[in-house]
């Protein structure tokens, strides 16, 4: 019996393997509910599981395309990239890590800057990608966010950022830390100019990005179940030596504690953003 089964498995195994190779290209397993999802279907549902609403992390290029009306936008500041000012070497030299990140993500940095229309409004958007060194903020990311804000001030347009970050980039040391002050100062000027800033938090948003521009939105929106916090959960667990509560540092936790405005499903996000822009963008600035 066992011999027979083994044999039959072996006989079947060849086509099964082939099938798996093929299906691996077509299917993705949902991280949360284990459902097999058609890749094409998942793309259509903006990388959200149609069975359990789990939000997969989304690459910056797809998100930029989704954000702007008819996917029409102009990418900006792509030439702003990282240097290695500290000559930082851990298990690998930092420039090697950067090269690898560029290759694997297809991006020049951990954020894409772009301009275009959203619901007919002029928008400067900065979209982060966790695939590029954990979406960490070094000098180049800080500079790009700052330029984005400055352009919006010059052209009296809105800023929208999509955060996805493990925090400040360690390999640029205190220069990375200073980017928090730099982008926050730029936002002070945007605020004084009375221009809109919508901050969208996606999984994960932690550390120096949370403690700077991500938490400074006029309105702060989060995707469902995103990890959002200052300190990482592991660091907290090690410090306080107790188990963290259920839901701790999720979007819903922040909403409950009054730290963000709304939690919105990605598939409903664009109409929400447009409604907010309609409110924030004053087209007849009669006083000025």
């Amino acid at each position, binding site marked *: 019996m066992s011999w027979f089964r083994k044999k039959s498995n072996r006989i079947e195994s060849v086509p099964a393997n082939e099938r798996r190779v093929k299906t691996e290209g077509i299917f993705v397993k949902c991280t949360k509910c284990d459902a097999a999802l058609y890749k094409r279907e998942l793309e259509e549902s903006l990388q959200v599981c149609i069975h359990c609403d789990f939000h997969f992390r989304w690459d910056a290029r797809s998100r930029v395309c989704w954000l702007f009306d008819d996917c029409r936008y102009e990418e900006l500041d792509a*030439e*702003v*990239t*990282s*240097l290695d*000012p*500290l000559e930082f*070497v*851990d*298990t690998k030299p930092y420039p090697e890590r950067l090269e690898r990140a560029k290759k694997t993500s297809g991006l020049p940095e951990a954020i894409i800057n772009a301009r275009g229309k959203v619901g007919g409004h002029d928008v400067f958007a900065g979209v982060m990608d966790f695939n590029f060194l954990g979406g960490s903020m*070094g*000098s*180049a990311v*800080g*500079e790009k966010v*700052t330029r984005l804000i400055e352009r919006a001030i010059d052209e009296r347009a809105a800023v929208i950022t999509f955060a996805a970050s493990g925090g*400040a980039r*360690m390999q*640029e*040391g*205190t*220069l990375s*830390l*200073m*980017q*928090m*002050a*730099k982008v*926050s*100062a*730029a*936002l*002070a*000027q945007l605020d*004084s100019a009375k221009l809109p800033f919508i901050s969208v938090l996606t999984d994960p948003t932690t*550390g*120096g990005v*949370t*403690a*700077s*521009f*991500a*938490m*400074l939105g006029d309105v702060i929106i989060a995707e469902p179940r995103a990890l959002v*916090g*200052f*300190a*990482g959960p592991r*660091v*907290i667990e090690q*410090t*306080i030596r107790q188990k*963290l*509560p259920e839901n*701790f*540092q999720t979007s819903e*936790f922040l909403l409950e*504690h*009054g*730290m963000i405005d709304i939690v919105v499903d990605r598939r409903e996000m664009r109409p929400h953003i447009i409604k907010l822009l309609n409110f924030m963008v004053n087209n007849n600035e009669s006083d000025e």
Partner: protein
Amino acid sequence: MLTPYERLQIARAPKRFYTLDVIERLFEDFTELRGDRRYGDDAAIIAGTATFHKTPVVVIGQQKGRDTKERRMRNFGMPKPEGYRKALRIMKLAEKFRRPILTFIDTPGAYPGIDAEERGQAEAIAYNLREMAKLETPVVVTVIGEGGSGGALGIGVGDRVLMLENAVYSVISPEGCAAILWKDAAQAERAANCLRLTAEDLQRLGIIDRTVAEPVGGAHTDTEESLRLLDSALKENLEFAVSIKSSERVKRRFKKLRELGRWSE
């Protein structure tokens, strides 16, 4: 020449002077002002009014504890959101009454705890960064011991940033960095060398304006002399900060922050 790791040990030396020592020795008429008017008071940050060489000022700083009891009371100098909010409240008071602000940084970092997260640690720091950038009053920042990441920067935006010779100022603690990059906290010494966290490095990188000398062996070997050196550096830099025309002050600060970083374009 001391290695960065040796400086780190000096910066953390238990006998090194703390914010309260600076206040007691270099300031007069100190009145501590407490609470954030929102949730509570945070003993990890001390704030109040005082006079410095007869000039009325606001003084704010993180305070580590000297003994076990005080360390616990001050949460080892790790502020919670109410600490940052109190600090900003007092800074706005200084702005309202056109008094300069002196802040003193000495913290391992903002407190990583459940309550701190619940009350918006990230928001508290972010909001301080934005609001400090546009304070219309002179601000002189001094890193006196440990400048632990965002928790330090949360009171660290100003017109002049000074740093003691053996103080450290870093995006992450060397231990934390080692745990992430080498998966081994014991590699802290290597991490300390990589992170460029000394005053010398940070002055070269344009992050601090002035290094304040310490006696040979570190401030803890001669507190009297260290505080004398700090006093004259503070006096000189406060005078400079006060001399900036008020119409230029915020513009100048924005410009200074704008230039931070090294990138290719």
